[in-house]
């Protein structure tokens, strides 16, 4: 039997969210649900308590936003990050460092900063996360252009289906700058985190049933209409339909895994009306 259609279930035991005007899941959820306006106050970037103060200041934006949502998701799920395998996803990685590297290499290649170079690897945020939490469980860092969010989510699902253990999923992108911004437009910062598990817990906030099927982007769930301050101009904003659904009454969500492949989700939240 072709197994594509076989649906599987995982539990969302922790959620986190960070955008400059939506700096946390509680404030974001009301906006994503459509019952509150976007607050006008904006933070530039998160200040993750996980990192020591000096590192908190020095950390690239990718590391700051990823560490913030990773930790918040673990706190929400009441799990110890040290034992948790993780999946990280980003469309472009650290756009600011890529701009710095390309600009410096074009002018004075012998003056490249060693710190910026080792922070230029796509997995820098994941590496810092494991160092800060003392986590020896594996992580993976994936990218799939405009399909990065669903592709990383599917990787997390596959790990749960294969190994039967919870997985932390973190997805983020930052603001593009310099000439590169004309090729990879991305505004502001956006980070999301999920602790996904094969079993429910006292912290479970939703249940996801997933399957993969062929199909094009016309079937994909659209995010809510743009509003001022809504984080829909970040490269990772294609994650929003799932978080809008998680914040609300649940329901079906279809995300693209590629131009001709779809990840179908049935989302059940505490507010889901399950009556026939």
């Amino acid at each position: 039997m072709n197994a594509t259609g076989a649906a599987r279930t995982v539990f969302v035991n922790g959620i986190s969210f960070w955008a400059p005007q939506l700096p946390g899941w509680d404030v974001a959820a009301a906006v994503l649900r459509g019952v509150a306006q976007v607050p006008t106050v904006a933070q530039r970037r998160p200040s993750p308590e996980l990192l020591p103060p000096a590192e908190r200041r020095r950390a690239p934006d990718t590391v700051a936003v990823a560490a913030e949502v990773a930790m918040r998701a673990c706190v929400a799920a009441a799990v110890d990050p040290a034992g948790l395998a993780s999946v990280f996803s980003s469309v472009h990685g650290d756009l600011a460092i890529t701009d710095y590297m390309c600009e410096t290499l074009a002018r004075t290649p012998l003056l490249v900063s060693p710190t910026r170079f080792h922070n230029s690897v796509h997995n820098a945020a994941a590496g810092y996360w494991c160092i800060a939490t003392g986590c020896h469980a594996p992580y993976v860092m994936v990218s799939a252009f405009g399909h990065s969010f669903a592709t990383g989510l599917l990787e997390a699902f596959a790990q749960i289906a294969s190994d039967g253990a919870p997985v932390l999923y973190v997805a983020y992108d930052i603001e593009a700058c310099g000439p590169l911004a004309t090729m990879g437009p991305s505004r502001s910062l956006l980070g999301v985190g999920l602790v996904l598990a094969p079993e429910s817990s006292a912290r479970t906030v939703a249940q996801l049933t997933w399957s993969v099927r062929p199909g094009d982007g016309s079937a994909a769930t659209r995010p809510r209409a743009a509003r001022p301050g809504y984080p829909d101009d970040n490269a990772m904003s294609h994650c929003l339909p799932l978080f809008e659904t998680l914040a609300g009454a649940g329901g079906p969500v279809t995300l693209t895994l590629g131009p001709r492949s779809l990840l179908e989700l049935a989302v059940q939240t505490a507010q889901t009306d399950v009556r026939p």
Partner: protein
Amino acid sequence: MAVGARSVAGSPAPPSRCLGRIPPLAITAYTVCSALGAGRAANFQALRMRRSGLRPNDFTGVPLATWIGRVDGLETKPLPEPFAAWDCRNNRLAWLALQQDGFSDAVAGARARYGPDRVAVFVGTSTSSIGASEEAYRQLTPEGLYPEALRRPIIHTVHSLGEFVQHALGLTGVCATTATACSSSAKAFAQAERMIRCGVADAAVVGGVDSLCASVLFGFNSLELISAEPCRPFDIARHGISVGEAGGFALLERDGPGPWLLGYGESSDAHHMSSPHPEGLGARLALGDALARSGLTAADIGYINLHGTASARNDEVEARLIAELFPATTRASSTKGWTGHALGAAGIVEAVISLLAIDGGLAPGTLNTTELDPACGPQIRIDNEALSLRFALSQSFGFGGSNCVLALGTERVA
């Protein structure tokens, strides 16, 4: 055979977080392109003849005294017209590799058998086509914009590689570009195995490509990790790495004549961004899991292709680990003296070299090295050795403390 890792008498078994063995996957096609040449035969011949692919750096505009592994001819081989949107050095190298050893034909066969949506693509890279972005920054218009010919967003982002490979092979299913630095293309095997086991795919193209670019050459230079001479892995007088470019691919299916992907182990060092854990803790965990998942013991392993970058720290830590955990009968070496360090492609290059070693009955030694570091045990060899091999490991460790070890073999483990 018991599940889990056992070690040689008197030494501790590597710890394992793994829950059990995996069903092996058949490797039904595989290929590689490196500084040694295009295709398996050219690479095997160079290994056998101990001919290095390294040459003095002739790649960077600003001089940098180092040796590099460069693939000839990429400058004059643009992608065929239908793929022009993806044209860049990294994707040219990917294309060159796809054309070797009947690899594209083998994938076409899998596509026909399973359907284009059922053959996944998992490819690893460290810098993907960032060389194209570097080129654009060198040629900005007076308005500070990219030159017309390089205004193609896909080649300025990491998924350039995965999207091109999927498109070039006519596939439509799951496709991810993995970027965990130097473990990237080894981890692609693990991702593919999980996706096949949970039924999302019936087959997978795995592998990776990294091409020469200023970012890595001047970046490793800034960390003082780059050698002015051809790299000498595990040599007492080693002076750092030689960067190489390479690409390679393997096709994984549930069944076939073999060879086999028997297992894999992954871990995080949780220690430092660009320096290995001093006791090799992450490497040890990955090794333990690779053995546990495959049902093999250390004593079963005939050959280990080591990460062996020729950096002072990596080689010392890795040498001690091998000396501690494996019997004297296991052969181990680094082949980076031949190919250079292919970074995100190192995993696939060295998995293919391990398969060539098994297939050709040759345990490669370590090129350019004259006196081994005293940390090396009897396993690590300078000379090549003709040897019948059944099971091999390939180790890849990356910046950000990401480790992956693959277990490969001629046969399935009972």
